[in-house]
């Protein structure tokens, strides 16, 4: 089930909010949330909810085992088994076909009979809940958190529906106390509703329409794209991925607040970054900090030789790329970012700092946009052709950007440009002390935005057959 669906908005959400509000104890609320979260997941994934339950069981009991272990050697061994099991599940469900496909290429060059593997279903959100459960075990191993002995709480931590399928990747330490005891205050609830509305609007009014343009242009034969059309496609995709992903985080954070949880921020206006390093401090913060804390720092962080640090950055970002999907495109995207992070660390950053601020932003956006081409393209050949189109190397292009410039798309592009900067929160802060009528107008605007988003959502499934007669 996705948040931007009528079933979620009109059935699941009211049911959860009503039930959660009527229950008075934290334990009762936790049990209720666990049941509804499992229902939420099973509604979309059916029997694959068992995969998530398996991850919960493995990591819950492993954490207890680690906490109980008499010596460091046993603790370490338990940790390794747990990580192998958890990541093994990820490999089976997410990477098995990718591995076999690549293995077959090697086998065929060696004239060995290739292997056949049926397409394996990818349970939605598996990357998130596996990383979340692994982080819990690692925190217990490192003594950063107390072990949780109630499996219902570990299960709730992993399965809590707002952050289950698209993050943010919540750390156990951040919500442990809230699972123990939480109160729901009216102002926090109202703030959660406001955040949810903003997320829903970002998804439906900005990400989806611009995603349509991006889909059209990335779905077109790359050899027929004019440079303007190719750039429009990647810009629309950049907006789509940002507004889609950050909208989901907004909705998760908003829902969390309505339920009494406080999740950390996941995005901080990444497109205003003036370097790739800054971009990663602002983009998908919960993932980048996960990789920093559980991979980059254990590999040595920045306490080792410069060369080794650069190499580690490439390794970390290579894996970060593959985390996004089982394809070489994602690996290439990760490597591109890793490369620029290494270059900036090696001295490029100092040189960039001397440039005018506009050029620093231009440099960052250029690297990020090139990265999005790798991320969005079907395969390497498509990415290369697309980049050629962006460079204006197509001899007789037929696709041109203005074809997509209807008033609605232009307005959406303008709104997307404005809302990917911190203009709205600045405006909101300025207006906050201007009296009750301004506040009333702001809330009225949000309610209108909600109605408009819902109307657009319902319309988005309006897909009549041309011969259909009402």
């Amino acid at each position: 089930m996705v948040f931007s669906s009528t079933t979620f908005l009109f059935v699941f959400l009211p049911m959860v909010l009503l039930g959660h509000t009527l229950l008075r104890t934290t334990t009762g609320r936790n049990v209720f949330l666990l049941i509804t979260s499992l229902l939420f997941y099973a509604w979309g994934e059916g029997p694959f909810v068992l995969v998530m339950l398996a991850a919960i069981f493995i990591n819950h009991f492993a954490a207890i085992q680690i906490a109980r272990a008499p010596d460091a050697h046993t603790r370490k061994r338990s940790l390794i088994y747990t990580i192998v099991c958890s990541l093994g599940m990820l490999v089976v469900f997410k990477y098995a076909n990718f591995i076999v496909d690549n293995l077959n290429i090697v086998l065929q060059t060696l004239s060995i009979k290739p292997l056949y593997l049926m397409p394996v279903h990818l349970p939605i959100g598996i990357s998130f809940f596996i990383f979340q459960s692994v982080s819990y075990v690692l925190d217990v191993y490192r003594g950063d958190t107390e072990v949780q002995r109630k499996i219902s709480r570990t299960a709730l931590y992993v399965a809590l529906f707002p952050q289950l399928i698209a993050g943010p990747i919540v750390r156990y330490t951040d919500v442990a106390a809230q699972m123990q005891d939480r109160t729901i205050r009216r102002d926090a609830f109202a703030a959660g509703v406001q955040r949810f509305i903003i997320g829903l609007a970002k998804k439906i009014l900005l990400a989806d329409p611009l995603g349509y343009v991006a889909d059209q242009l990335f779905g077109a034969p790359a050899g027929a794209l004019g440079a303007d059309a190719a750039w429009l496609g990647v810009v629309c995709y950049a907006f789509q991925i940002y507004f889609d992903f950050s909208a989901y985080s907004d909705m998760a954070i908003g829902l969390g607040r309505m339920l009494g949880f406080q999740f950390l921020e996941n995005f901080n206006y990444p497109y205003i970054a003036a370097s790739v390093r800054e971009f990663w401090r602002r983009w998908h913060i919960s993932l980048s900090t996960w990789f920093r804390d559980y991979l980059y720092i254990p590999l040595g962080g920045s306490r080792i030789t410069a060369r080794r640090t650069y190499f580690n950055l490439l390794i970390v970002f290579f894996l970060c790329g593959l985390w996004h999907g089982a394809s070489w495109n994602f690996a290439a995207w990760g490597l591109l970012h890793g490369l620029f992070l290494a270059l900036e660390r090696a001295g490029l950053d100092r040189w960039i700092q001397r440039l005018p601020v506009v050029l620093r932003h231009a440099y960052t956006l250029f690297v990020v946009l090139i990265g999005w081409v790798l991320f969005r393209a079907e395969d390497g050949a498509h990415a290369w052709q697309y980049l050629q189109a962006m460079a204006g190397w197509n001899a007789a292009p037929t696709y041109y950007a203005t074809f997509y410039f209807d008033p609605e798309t232009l307005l959406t592009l303008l709104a997307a440009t404005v809302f990917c900067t911190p203009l709205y929160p600045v405006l909101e802060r300025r207006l906050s002390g201007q009296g009750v009528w301004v506040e009333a107008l702001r809330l009225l605007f949000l309610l209108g935005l909600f109605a408009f988003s819902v109307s657009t959502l319902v319309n988005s499934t309006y897909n009549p057959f041309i011969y259909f007669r009402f």
Partner: protein
Amino acid sequence: MNRFIHTAFLFTFCGMLAYGGWLYWRVFAESGFSKQIKWVGHAPSGITNAYELEFTRILSAQRHPLITGLAGLKWNALDVSFIRKVEKGREGWLFLKEEVAGRNELLQSLGIRPYLDFERKMWKLIIAQRAAWTNAQGMQYVMVVVPNKTSIYPEYLPARDRVAGPGNLTQLLPDLSGIQVINLTDSLLNQKHTGQLFHKNDTHWNELGAFVAYQSLMRALPPPFRETPMPLDSVVLEWTTTPGGDLARLLLMDSLLLERAARVTLRNPQAHCETGCDSSYGPFMPSKHFRNPRARLSKVFFDHDSFFRSLIPYVAEHFQESVFYWEWQGFNDYEIGQAQPGLVVDEFVERSLIGDRPRNNPPVLQHYWQQQFDALPQLARLSCKSLRQAFRQIELIGVEAGALPVVALELTPTSASRLIVEYDDKEVFYPLEAGKKNTVYLEWERPRVKDLRVERDVEMGVAVRVGTY
């Protein structure tokens, strides 16, 4: 005061959720959707996803403000239609844009989206197979292309939509040498001075456009089916005000967007309809059978789409017997075989030549590959213990990009059976005779082929040859 405002905000938000919930369940109860519930996929979301589509369909049928409000807002404030299927043109003209994913009439007519080599090759193959099968039955085959409205009236498109290239037909038609093709585009473009040939807010030509198309068609048919068409003064031409057509209906504005439309009536019709004479139309219109004993020409079979609906009365005048079979992109070899006409007219509207391709029926496909398979470059030869093994082995064969694997399966069942091939979500059946070697040819378009089995799951060995087209 601030506290009151926040409380009011929360109550309104909850009220909106409650209203949405009430609407959701009310439509569910009234629509009878509960009786249609089918388990789709592996999870309950299959049911709610289907219901969400039904929910919107019913709200739009009821002209609910949730739908019409947004439609009106976009129409008036942004000068755009609220759905991507329709492009709002100039001077009240509407155009079909993206009918379904992958079939964008606008991109096609403006020459923006060229065929990929593989697509062009596949269309050529589909038409060639139909022509070869028809000719083998002793009939003539003619392909007729009806232009998109956008190809005839691009001047009414918004200024941002400009012609970028020659278009798909210019790419495809030279490939069809040896096949009789009648492209009606030029004749319609040349006759625009006679009056408005297409509806403003419908995808189709009006009756005047249909008459002009009929005249061009009769002049272009191959001998002995070519005949001088009736002149325009042999019909009564009137202009009437009609409610909006299919495009206006898509926008839920058919009662608002009226237009003047041509009405053409034959002064002295000779042909009479024998079967399927109900004048109602839709995607499931029955085949129509006309007779005109005074006509000179013998029997004709039209495999057509909605465009030929208004052409039928004129064309039927010329043939002693004419059968009109409505099937989008289709080619009904069975009906043609039953009718035994001298001429088969296979009509396509221009936009039907992009996007999803039809797959010819097994007899048409088998006939073609029986003749052509051995001439293909051979890729592999396998001997498999079962069809399941054959399926896996074929899937693993590396095929270069842009090539279509064609598979010849040789099966020798002990009892009469059928080979079942699952293409996408449809099953196609190939009869197998008992005790003899049956060769079945399959176009193995990945990933459309999902499964391969024999009825009643009889296991048997199978020899496989794979060629590439």
